[in-house]
Every structure is written in structure tokens, then in C-alpha cells.
């Protein structure tokens, strides 16, 4: 790929048409992604999209970059393998809330903890859409779904709160209908050095109802101008809100990323023995 090529948002579209329902919040996320990629001029051949399983995890198929639609819950491990083995690539993991917090919850914790340098976009619709409407860990308590006939008996979690607690160094929230902000946050997330987590409230009109867009819009709020994103306690104040969906960069700090630490280890190892031949390796077994 030559550097003179300029990419437009449309250049990132594949021929595949999304399988999503008309009115799905994920369309907004996808369009914002095309625009963010174009604005950053991400080279398609040097970019890898990785997803799990779910409605939103179909997304890599619609983006003209390298892509893997992996197993349910396993996007982050595979993205980790890509990024650690080829640190020069842009890696973006995407998926839903059930994929990332229920079945993939353990990976979410450890990927954030390692602060590996890639972006994770979670499209959060508070429901299992692909399997047609069962409760997710993000579904509010008491909500009736296909799997909770009498109301959801469980307490829900806030993905941003988890991400901050697990050690993610960049955490933001937005509403998929708020395209301009989503584009801006995606760009910031991709440019962040370390693990960046973007929680996008992406309504499911089919299983959460047509009113979802209106309801989220009514709750939409923005961080105050004096919000300090390096202050963890302050960031956590905007999580677990039931009456509001506060958008913006909640948390943003810099610490060494896994790929940087692995390079430190690489240099230490080279000091002990710089590129030993196979014969030299074998000779330690005499």
C-alpha cells in the first residue's frame, strides 16, 4: 500500500450487506467506524478487525480490512495473539455486551489488565439479539425478556465500571445515535496507546422495543467540562447510573502497554544471549 493513497469512508465498505434489522443501533456504529478510519487514514491491509459472536460481531465482515469473526466470547484472546505477534498492526476488537461480559468476561478482565495496545468497541444493547431476546448481564433487573418471563432476577453490570476496575487505561461511553461523538471517540480510542474501551449504547429495536432510541436519547448526558479523566474515582462516578447515559471519555491515563513491556523483555533477553544459533541452544543440554 503506497502512502499517497487516500482512503474515503466508502473505501472501507465490503460488498457484504449487514444482516442487522432495520433501525438497529449497530448501523450507526458501523458508519461511524468507516468515518473514523478514513479520518485516521488507517491502511486496510495493516488493520485487523476481530469479533466474537452476536449481532454486532458480524461487523468485521462489513469492513474492508483483515478480519476474523471468531468464537463466542473469544475476540479478545485472538486480538491479543494478532497484536502481540504483529505489534505494528492496527487491531480493533468489536462485539456485544453478552459476548464481552458474560462468556468473554474473564478475557475482558485480563486484556484490560495487560493494557494491550488495541481498541475494544462494545456495542451494548442490553440483550441477546442473535438468539432472539434473552437477558444479558447488562439487562436491568426486573426486565421481562424471552428468558426472564417474570422479570430479570439478576443485578446488571456497567461495562465501563468493569473496564476501569480491570485496568483499562482509556474508557469512554457514547450513544450510537450520537454519530459525531462516536466518530470522535473512535478516533481517540484507536490513537490511545494501551487498551482502550469504548462502550456504545446501541439499541436493539427488535428485542428491546422501538422506543429504545427515544429512551436512551432522553437519558443522554455529557461529562461536565471540568471532568478530570485521569481521576479514577471521578470516572467511576459516571458509571452505574440508572437515570442517565453519560457520554464522553470517562477515564484516560497512560501506563506501559503489554507490547512495550514485551519489547523490554525482548531487549533483556537479547542481553543475556543475542540471537543464539540452534547449535548454541542445543549445547546447553550437554
Amino acid at each position, binding site marked *: 500500500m503506497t502512502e499517497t493513497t487516500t482512503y474515503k469512508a466508502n473505501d472501507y465498505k465490503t460488498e457484504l450487506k449487514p444482516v442487522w434489522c432495520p433501525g438497529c443501533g449497530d448501523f450507526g456504529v458501523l458508519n461511524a467506524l468507516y468515518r473514523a478510519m478514513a479520518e485516521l487514514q488507517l491502511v486496510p*491491509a495493516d*488493520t485487523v478487525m476481530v469479533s466474537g459472536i452476536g449481532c454486532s460481531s458480524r461487523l468485521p465482515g462489513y469492513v474492508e480490512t483483515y478480519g476474523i469473526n471468531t468464537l463466542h466470547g473469544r475476540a479478545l484472546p485472538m486480538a491479543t*495473539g494478532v497484536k502481540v*505477534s504483529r505489534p505494528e498492526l492496527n487491531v480493533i476488537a468489536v462485539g456485544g455486551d453478552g459476548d464481552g461480559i458474560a462468556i468473554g468476561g474473564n478475557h475482558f478482565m485480563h486484556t484490560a489488565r495487560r493494557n494491550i495496545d488495541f481498541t475494544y468497541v462494545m456495542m451494548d444493547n442490553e440483550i441477546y439479539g442473535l438468539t432472539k431476546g434473552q437477558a444479558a448481564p447488562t439487562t436491568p433487573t426486573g426486565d421481562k425478556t424471552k428468558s426472564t418471563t417474570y422479570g430479570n432476577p439478576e443485578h446488571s453490570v456497567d461495562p465501563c465500571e468493569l473496564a476501569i476496575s480491570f485496568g483499562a487505561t482509556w474508557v469512554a461511553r457514547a450513544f450510537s445515535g450520537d454519530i459525531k461523538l462516536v466518530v470522535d471517540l473512535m478516533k481517540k480510542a484507536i490513537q490511545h496507546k494501551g487498551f482502550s474501551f469504548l462502550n456504545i449504547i446501541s439499541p436493539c429495536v427488535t428485542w428491546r422495543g422501538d422506543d429504545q432510541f427515544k429512551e436512551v436519547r432522553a437519558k443522554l448526558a455529557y461529562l461536565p467540562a471540568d471532568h478530570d479523566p485521569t481521576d479514577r474515582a471521578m470516572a467511576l462516578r459516571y458509571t452505574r447510573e440508572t437515570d442517565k447515559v453519560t457520554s464522553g471519555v470517562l477515564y484516560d491515563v497512560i501506563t506501559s502497554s503489554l507490547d512495550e513491556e514485551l519489547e523490554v523483555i525482548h531487549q533483556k*533477553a537479547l542481553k543475556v544471549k543475542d540471537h543464539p544459533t540452534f547449535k548454541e541452544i542445543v549445547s546447553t543440554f550437554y
Partner: protein
Amino acid sequence: MTRDFTLSLVGAGGDGVVTMGDMLARAGAREGLNAMKTDAYGPQIRGGESSSAVRLSPDPIYSQGDAIGVMVIFSWAGFSRFKSEITPSADAIIFHEATDPVPPEFKRGEGMAIIPVPFIEIAKAASGTGASKNIVALGMLCGLFHLPEAPLRASIERRFKKKGPEVVASNLAAIDAGAKIDFAALASDIPDLNARIEAKKLDYTPGKPKLLMSGNDATAIGAMYAGCKFFAGYPITPSTEVLQILGEWLPRVDGRVIQTEDELSAFGAVVGASFAGVKSMTSTSGPGLSLMTEMLGLASIAEIPSIIYNVMRGGPSTGIPTKSEQSDLFQAVFGGHGDMPRAVLAPADVEDSFHCIVEAFNISEEFQIPVIILNDQLIAQRIETLDEASLVHEIKDRKAPTEEELEDYKRYRETPSGVSPMSAPGIAKGIYQTNGLEHDEYGSPNAGYLMHEQMNAKRFRKLWGIQSKYHFVRRYGPEKASVGILTWGSMKGPAEEIVKRAAARGQAVSAFIPQIIMPFPKSELDQFIASCDQILIVEQNYSAQFYKYLRSFADLPAGRTHVYKKSGGRPMTMVEIEAEMLKILEPASEPAEVMA
């Protein structure tokens, strides 16, 4: 004099028997002897009873040996824990710590020489501490049985150099004190002791030094030889050494190693790295293989080269984590949902562990298929000698797509071999999106049944290519045999020895040991079955998995197929397998279970 020295060392925590075994095997290797060493531990995290068995010989060593010629016992309580695993020979010479008298329940064979030795007292006198009693015992063994003392002294100097010249000197003094023990006084009740010792003296002349490594060592260095540049793993007995060795060495050759949160993640990262174009592997054991089987399906349908090195231990569940059992076969060859081609290899000794990992990378990269290696704990964690010259193997790398293939690039293009051009990030014209969904030639999801049939056929066709190209089989014995032993993995050692012994008796016995288990080398197997009057299948698991697996594609003749199988936990001995073979060969005695 003997050309086959077998030794067992048994002690409690802190007695240093494993160090002793290690030093002795290493000393033997330095003198060009063949050596094999197997350790066994109690369940304690630290301390607790342990044993180390060492076999030294100028001739090839096939197994750890059935009956032990010489023993050193520091703790009879420790010995009682290993009673079912350690069998002294009828004429064994047993040295035990004098302050720990022989317990009444010990079955003293009539031909045995049992000698109390005040190891602790001698150690204290020579070096100031009873802790060097293991070094005293090493000196004694060298002095009595013509074991390689010079390299042993050199290894003591190396081992204790960091602790200062006094420590080196006191350990060398312990060696000397051991060599000077006066047995006329200690064993006055055994008048022919000198003759007995003479009979067990190792007869050898020093030769070229040999390498000494475990199956896990050989796998780790084999991975580096093959060009592996990414390893992700989760600690699990008995394969953790691979994670540790590669963690130390891979960064020195620009590779990357990560320890993940679980085995799902470990193999996920491996498949991700391989998608990115980097040769990658993981290592694990049974419980981890169960978790990795999830990702195996994705690697198979998305056709991503990837390696799982699985060391088999007693199962199911946590089972017996420290002991050998060949019971992960079904999981490896059949495990997973859907129709899922994969290749399975199984080393038969330490040297094979090197060849199998390189071959696994070759098959995986050439055919874009996940490969599982099933090693026996018995091979993975024992150390044995090998010649450096044997560590040579052809290396195959993944082929980049040609310019022509990149025009209208189809990641899963139909080809006669089933192998399609595989691109990698960075190649502008090779961009594709893959997935675990059934897909068309471009990789786009496709739920049509005809496409599913076509793609299944394409993926399974690769097995034919592997089967016709890779003939990784060992066969011993005459072309026509009365009994043919059909076995795999660590059972190779006893089988090879049985074939040799039978030939010496004038009996026609052969053995067939495949290193490639799936796709199975069927024509070689058919030929072998046809060449033997009787077939004896030997395997170390309860449910006869190997036999049942062979039955799924091979015609094992009813009435002349016998199965000898046993749960793991204790290595199957050459003598017990030979006894089964003889029952078939000389049917006057009870025949082995006929399972056809």
C-alpha cells in the same frame, strides 16, 4: 560386569535424590553413555517423598527398566509410597540409611543384599553437614560400580561454584568419603558381596558426550528449530516446562511468549497470531485440551495453522496430574462438535518429541490445519540421552499467495488438494474476512447446504494429502511375524526391546508404532496386519481407546487380535507386555483378552 546399570534412589523431602539422579545421568551423558532418568514425586507441593530412577548403558536404552539392580534408600517411609512403582530385582543390592532400619513389612528377597550405611554420619564427618549424604552416596556408587566419577566431580564444581570454594571442597570431600566406605565392616553378613558388586559394575569405555534432555525440552527446542515465534500458554502439569523454556529462549530469537488467563485464551491467541502470519503454538495437558477443543473448531473451519502440544496425564478431570496415561486419544482425534479435520502426532521417545513438533509445524503450515501432539508424560518429563546429529529435520514454511492468486483473491479457493492460498495482514491484495461460520470461497458467510458439503469436502481432502506425504511410522522386527505388537507413544521402548529379545530366542515378533495418528498411515498398517499371524495391541488406558480408534478404519481380524490395556499411573513394563506376547505365541498358557 554388566552393560546395563539400573538404579533407584528413594528419599523424603530434602534428601536430594532427584538432584542425585540428575547429576548421575548428566555424568553418564558426558562420558558418552546412554542414560534415562525418571523421577516420581508425592503429591506435596514442596518436600515429601521422591524417587529417581537412573539407567546407564553403553548400549541403546529402550525403557526405564523393569527390575532395579541397585537401590539407595534414605527413607523407608518414602519407599513404601512408591512400592507399587519400584521393583528391586531378585539379586538387588540395597543400601539404606543406617539410622532408618529395614521395616518388618519389607519383603526381603532371598538373593538381595541389604546393607545399612551411615550416610548422614559419614557426610557430617567429611563435610560438616548431613545434608551432603546424597553426595556421599554418589561417591559410594561411583567407587563400587564404575560409574563416571570424573564428570561427576566436574559437575559438582560447576553446581556449587557460586556458593564458594568451601562448599565445592566439602562436597568433593563427601564424594571421596563415599568412595572410601569400608564394606567389610558394614556388610560382614554378606560374604560374597565383592562378587555381587563385581557383577553389577558398569562395563563401558568413555565416548563422545551426548545431549541429555526431556521430551518437553526437545519439544521446546524443536519449536524454535521450526521457526516458532509466538507461544501462549497456561501452566499445567506435566507440560509447564515448555512455557518456561520458551519464555526464557524465544525472546532471544525475537519471539514473543505470553501466559494467558486460561487455555481458551492461550489457544485463541495462538490462532490469532497464526492468522497474522506467525508460526505459533501452545502446550497443555488433558483439562486444557478440553478447553482448547472449542477453538480447535475455528482453527479447522477457518483453516488456520496452529499447534497444541498436549502431554497426557491420568484422567478424566484432574485425575493423576503427575503420572502417565494414554487416555486423551479420543479427545484428540474425535473431540469437538461438527466435522472437524485435524492432524494428530504422537512421539515415541525424547528424540521423536523434537521430530514431532517440527513435523507438526510442517503439516500445519503446509495444509493449514490444526495439529495436536499427544506426548506421554513418561516421555515428556523423563530425561534421556540423544545424539546432536539426530536433531535435523526438514522445515516447511507457509506459502505466500502468488500474484496470480491475489487477482480476485479467494481465501478458500477450491483446489484439488483442498489447500487454498493463505494471505496475511500487510498484503494489500490479499485482504479477507474469515469466520467460524460456514463460508464460500471468499470467506463470506454462507448457510447453503451445497456450499457446506463442498467446503467440508475441501477441508477433509487435506487429510488425504497429509496421509500420502507423511509416513511417520516405526516398524521393528521381521517382515513376517508370528506376533505383531501394535502400540504407540512411550510403549515403543518396551515393544522394541521385546522384538530384540524375541529375535535372540529365534521368535518372529514385530512391532508397529505410528508417530502420525491422524490421518493414520493406513496402507502401512494394513500391510503390517497382513504380515502377522497374531496382533497384540498394547496401550495404557482403561477403555482401549487405541484399539477402538484403529477399529474405526482398519480391519482387525477377529480371533487373532488381542488387546493388552491398563490404566495409567505406573509405566507398563517390558516384562509384563512380553508375558502377554508369550501367551499368544505359546498358547499353552492363558491367552490375552480377545476383543475382536
